């Protein structure tokens, strides 16, 4: 059971869908697989207002339009795919599904994106959805008039702390460094909020509570002083990690687990290309993912032409 394709794309975010559009339009048989929903992290954006040519849309709508466009060119897309194994080292690449089905191709584009980074501390899993949240827009109103913490010091964390100040009685921003990574004007806006205080240079130790989340424990990395912050909620925005675990030991990854590519988005494996947030890059936007998808698809097409010659 299974099917042969010219190109299998792993990931149905903007990078993967764009690769699907370009490769299918070039009349190659293309399968886009994703273990989650179509759109990847893009669906987590309520509003997209900086995608050129589209004044305003949602991440979901933009993703669906991309998927529809890819399908119109003949691209197969399977969301919520139950992938068991990915073998990329041979000339023929093989993706095996949990039901035993196999998809074979001569080229693969890895566009598996990233997943929100977790703290990995005691109580984090226990209180997800019962105090701990990763979406201020979704869950902010549950904390109206209540104290919360925001963990992180980048643009997302500080922008969301400002947004959450519409609801919360007090916000404690807990950050692991003694300086912020956010843009200066974002930092300034957060710092000017009278209901926000800051705990810097902290390592979060854990979350505790009896009837839901009640306390965040953190330690000052310089002094060793432990702080117990009383909260009803905590929003975690500490960035993303690449979704590259399936490729460890098969292709070159850097120290952060990002796929290493050259300018043509070739990986260390012949016939394997990478696009979007899974690869080593500095700027992670929908537009840069789309650009990556384009380059990876054109490189894969070139590879297939060479391989066919």
């Amino acid at each position, binding site marked *: 059971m299974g099917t042969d394709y010219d190109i299998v794309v792993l990931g149905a975010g903007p990078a993967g869908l764009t690769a699907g559009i370009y490769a299918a339009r070039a009349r190659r048989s293309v399968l886009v697989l994703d273990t989650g*929903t179509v759109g990847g992290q893009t669906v987590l954006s309520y509003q997209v207002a900086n995608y050129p040519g589209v004044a305003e849309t949602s991440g979901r709508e933009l993703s669906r339009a991309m998927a529809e466009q890819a399908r119109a060119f003949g691209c197969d897309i399977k969301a919520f795919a*139950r992938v068991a194994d990915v073998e990329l080292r041979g000339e023929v690449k093989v993706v095996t599904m949990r039901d035993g089905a196999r998809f074979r191709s001569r080229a693969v584009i890895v566009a598996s994106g990233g997943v929100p980074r977790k703290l990995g501390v005691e109580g984090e899993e226990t209180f997800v959805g019962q105090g701990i949240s990763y979406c201020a827009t979704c869950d902010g109103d549950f904390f109206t008039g209540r104290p919360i913490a925001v963990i992180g010091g980048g643009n997302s964390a500080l922008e969301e702390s400002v947004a959450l100040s519409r609801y919360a009685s007090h916000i404690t921003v807990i950050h692991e460094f003694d300086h912020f990574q956010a843009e200066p004007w974002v930092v300034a806006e957060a710092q000017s909020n009278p209901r926000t205080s800051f705990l810097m240079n902290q390592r979060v130790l854990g979350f505790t509570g009896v009837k839901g989340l009640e306390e965040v424990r953190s330690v000052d990395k310089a002094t060793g002083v432990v702080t117990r912050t009383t909260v009803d909620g905590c929003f975690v925005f500490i960035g993303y990690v690449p979704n590259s675990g399936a490729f460890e030991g098969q292709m070159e990854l850097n120290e952060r687990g990002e796929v290493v590519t050259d300018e043509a988005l070739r990986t260390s494996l012949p016939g394997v290309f990478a696009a979007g947030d899974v690869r080593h890059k500095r700027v992670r936007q929908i537009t840069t993912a789309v650009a990556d998808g384009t380059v990876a698809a054109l490189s894969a097409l070139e590879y297939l032409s060479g391989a066919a010659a």
Partner: protein
Amino acid sequence: MLQTGLEHIESEEAFRQALEENDNVMICCGRMGPMCLPVYDIMETLTPEYPHVAFRDMAFDEPVGRVVRDLPETAGFTGLPFTVYFREGKVVAATSSIQTMDQVTAVLDAKFAPQA
């Protein structure tokens, strides 16, 4: 109203009817937000695979949402969506916030196993 491909529960009468007419019911109560959309998509995907389960959604902010919001099993929930699994009219599981396909199927397989 939610813009999904699922059957919507829009009144308390429809809620009661869904529980009366179906042994196994999964209801996702949420908004059209980023944590909710993936769960609706999972339910749509699973509908043909789990014919013995009635998959429904419900708008969290509509009056009917009260029937899920006010359940004792969702009392401490602070993350959308609230997803509740009913077997023979009784709550057998409830989850808060976004769920993965594996998390949803784990509950479905454990709580709604087809009877031999």
